């Protein structure tokens, strides 16, 4: 609302509007929306006026108005959109490769005791190594920088998907198997109708966490090993002291991560429709 002119102050308030407002706030999740908007607007105002108000520690942080000006410039440049495209492609390839390898391997390990006992120790030795620590080895091993970045992204998503699949398939209630056996399930039915659907919720959780890790690894790998992409652009901006541009890159990566997680969430709703109501 704009400020009310002083000549109108003596007028009685508009009860219909006030009542309507209260009703709107109480209805459903409108209050939650209102609170969310208030807190975001509050944060932006605080950030904008931090420097003039002399908030300690924020003297060198460019305010939102500068960031918006920088983003207008950056958003109209080709480099920026190329960086988006390349980063998205790297995440997509690395993440998909992690699913294509991790999910079937996890299911196989969960169903085969000997395979689990043979392969799991190796997993447990390699898994605690942070994917970022693999960057030098990856650069030496893979023929191109592009492949080493994708490999680091892959590692970020792979372990969590593998572990979630093993955990999900390994903890299926024995009564489901028994009921399925009694009802005449062949081993093929057992896999497609019991083990796989029972594991889907765990796989989706693994994918959601894995997607977050994939973006983290992408940014780190692009900063160190890349010469393109959003992570590289972010670091370049820092090197030339273009801090507003840095912040635009940060927000861009945040938006990309959010959109990717949203895709996984929708995929999960589609793949596990029985969980929607719970």
């Amino acid at each position, binding site marked *: 609302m704009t400020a009310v002119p002083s000549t109108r102050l003596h007028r009685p308030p508009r009860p219909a509007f006030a009542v309507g407002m209260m009703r709107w706030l109480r209805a459903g999740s409108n209050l939650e929306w209102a609170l969310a908007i208030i807190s975001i607007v509050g944060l932006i105002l605080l950030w904008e006026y931090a420097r003039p108000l002399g908030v300690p520690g924020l003297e060198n942080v460019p305010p939102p108005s500068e960031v918006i000006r920088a983003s207008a410039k950056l958003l109209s440049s080709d480099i920026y959109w190329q960086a988006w495209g390349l980063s998205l492609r790297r995440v997509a390839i690395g993440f998909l490769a992690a699913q294509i390898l991790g999910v079937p391997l996890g299911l196989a390990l969960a169903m085969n005791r000997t395979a689990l006992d043979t392969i799991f120790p190796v997993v447990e030795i390699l898994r605690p190594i942070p994917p970022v620590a693999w960057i030098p080895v990856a650069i030496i091993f893979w023929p191109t920088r592009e492949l080493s970045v994708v490999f680091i992204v892959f590692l970020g998503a792979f372990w969590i998907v593998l572990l979630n699949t093993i955990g999900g398939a390994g903890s299926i*209630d024995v*009564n489901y198997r*028994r009921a399925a*056996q009694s*009802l*005449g399930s062949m081993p093929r039915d057992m896999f497609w109708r019991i083990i796989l*659907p029972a594991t889907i919720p765990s796989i989706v959780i693994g994918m959601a966490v894995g997607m977050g890790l994939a973006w983290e690894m992408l940014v780190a790998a692009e900063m160190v090993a890349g010469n393109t992409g959003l992570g590289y652009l972010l670091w370049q901006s820092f090197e030339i002291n273009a801090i507003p541009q840095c912040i635009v890159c940060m927000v861009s990566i945040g938006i990309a991560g959010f959109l990717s997680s949203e895709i996984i969430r929708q995929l999960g709703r589609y793949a596990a429709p*029985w969980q929607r109501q719970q």
Partner: protein
Amino acid sequence: MEARTRSGSLSIRNVGKVYNPGGAKVVALEDISVEIRAGSFCVFVGPSGCGKTTLLNTVAGFDTVTAGEIYLDNVLLSAPEHAPQPGSDRIVVFQNGSLFPWKTVLWNAVCGPVQQGRMKYAEAAAHARELLARVGLKGIEAQYPGELSGGMKRRVEIVRALINEPKILLLDEPFRALDALTKSVVQEYLLELYDLVPRTVFFITHDVEEAVFLADTVIVMTTRPGRILKILNVDMERPRTHRILTSERFLAIENEIRAAIHDEARKAFEAGERELAA
């Protein structure tokens, strides 16, 4: 229908089961012999841990015996040298329920005959709808089990079992988690289905009133090692409703069982106390 009641006679002869985890012998069942007539409703009562579920699992084919034999219609089902297989002639309704949460109610209900190739999907679906309607569950076919109440889930599970036309229906404390009111409703539905198509029922509970209300024969078991303490016939006519719960005959039988079971329950309790103290 009449012909079916002649099959499903279960003969349990001198059955014993010894578990041997880490060298410490645990005698779960000792010298159990029962003859269950085709089409009779048999209820096993006994204190917790008396081996009722172990006995049911050996009949269902989920567990082996270490002594004795089990015959179904004079065909050897299980013996120490003859590991049993689960089959659709002996369907179990589990204590915690085992409806597949990822499948709709209708698919759950038809999966037995469809997977075994005994019925076409459309035929099985029509049959399932009819049975569901008979237990008061019209119009829930497209829902997932997670959307149903406990009493509804139990009825769906009983329908899923009965549609296979098993020779024997095995129920392992199926109504344990239900509140008293729901329980009495579901019990009456079970009896209605039983009266409609009498078939052998192997029912486990530790609720004495439930046992007498449902059973033709009540088998009282001792605490570990599980042995048969007493076999009583409940010579009350069918169809039964909850009105009989207050009849003199009903109370007399109930008291007789309570007296027998009370000592066993105390022994089980004291053994439990000793185990805790040790």
